């Protein structure tokens, strides 16, 4: 069993300023501006985790049920991956029994 975790790419620089995130692929740029919901999703993603975990954090932040934001978060994250700012890393899932 595997999980896909979302990570900010090692060659991405980013700065959060006054609620807006500025993120740039290194070394050439240019910087992208992520405002509003985009910044919320980025900051949730910066904590790491799967798409489901990121979606839940965003839902908690904006005070909406997860199912309401799921499609928008998925679309936005796909855009970040396409831009090279975020990568998906496949890691082995921890079997439930290992927590026993």
């Amino acid at each position, binding site marked *: 069993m595997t999980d896909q975790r979302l990570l*900010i790419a090692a*060659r*991405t*620089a*980013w*700065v959060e*300023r006054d609620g807006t995130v*500025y993120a*740039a692929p*290194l*070394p*050439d*740029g*240019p*910087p*992208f*501006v*992520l405002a509003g919901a*985009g910044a919320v999703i980025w900051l949730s993603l910066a904590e790491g985790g799967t798409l489901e975990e990121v979606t839940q954090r965003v839902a908690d932040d904006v005070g909406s049920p997860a199912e309401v934001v799921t499609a928008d978060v998925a*679309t*936005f994250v796909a*855009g*970040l991956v396409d*831009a090279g700012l975020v990568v998906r890393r496949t890691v082995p899932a921890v079997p439930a029994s290992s927590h026993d």
Partner: protein
Amino acid sequence: MTEVVEVPLPVRVELAHAAVQALADEAGVDVLHIKGPAVHPGLRAHTDAATDVDVIVRPSGVDALMAILAAHGWRVETTFDAGSAFDHAANLFHESWGMLDVHRHYPGMDRDPAHAFDRLWSSRDSVELGHLPCAVPEPLAQSLVLLLHSARTPHPGGDHPDLAPNWTDRTPQDRELIKALAADTGATVALAAATGHLDDYQGDPEAAVWEVFVHGGDRLDEWTARFRAARGPRAKVSVAWRSLRVNRYYLGLKLGHNPTRPEVAVESVRRIGAGVKALAGRVSWR
């Protein structure tokens, strides 16, 4: 979801530090980030005032860094020998990141740049700029760097704002440590210029260079002082030659276009004529 729009200058500068670090890493070159957001909190009141990126590069890595910068869209605006009489920094521009100053040595620490860099590198700290780890001088060394910079940029109507946090307000013990670092990096006279003690070095040829900045002077004063400070005939000839060389960048600004070879030749003859006459009247070759 994303769009390219105006990025506030302080944010762009911080991201640019990260971009330069990424290229330095790729080239395997050591750089120290100085000034602006690289400065330790408290040593400079307004880090957001930075308009460009400043790095000091290990002298042996200058060519490699300049090559990788050029390969990634950084355009040289002024070459190392086109700026100040110290020949210390090249100025570059990038469409995404703005301005960058690459220092191959630091004015005041220029007697043995490799040793000075080693000294700063051996006690370096690291800060995250754009969430990328970037090497910076440790805080006392940052103070020395800022003080040496303040010595070259007199502040009209009073002390340079960097003087208080880096010298006046520091403890006597800190000031002694900064003096010791200055001695180790060949910056004793430059530090004296920054802290108002240049008179202690009257007669020292190096002091003449800093007097130009502290008390004012033109480019010829600057070159004359550099000539006096140069040690030995070979170094003096080098300074004299460089002082007469045509600066293509500034000639281009004056002409409004890239100078042609004949235009450079004409300017060379003019400078040599004027320069030899002026230097002959103002300096001694001993």
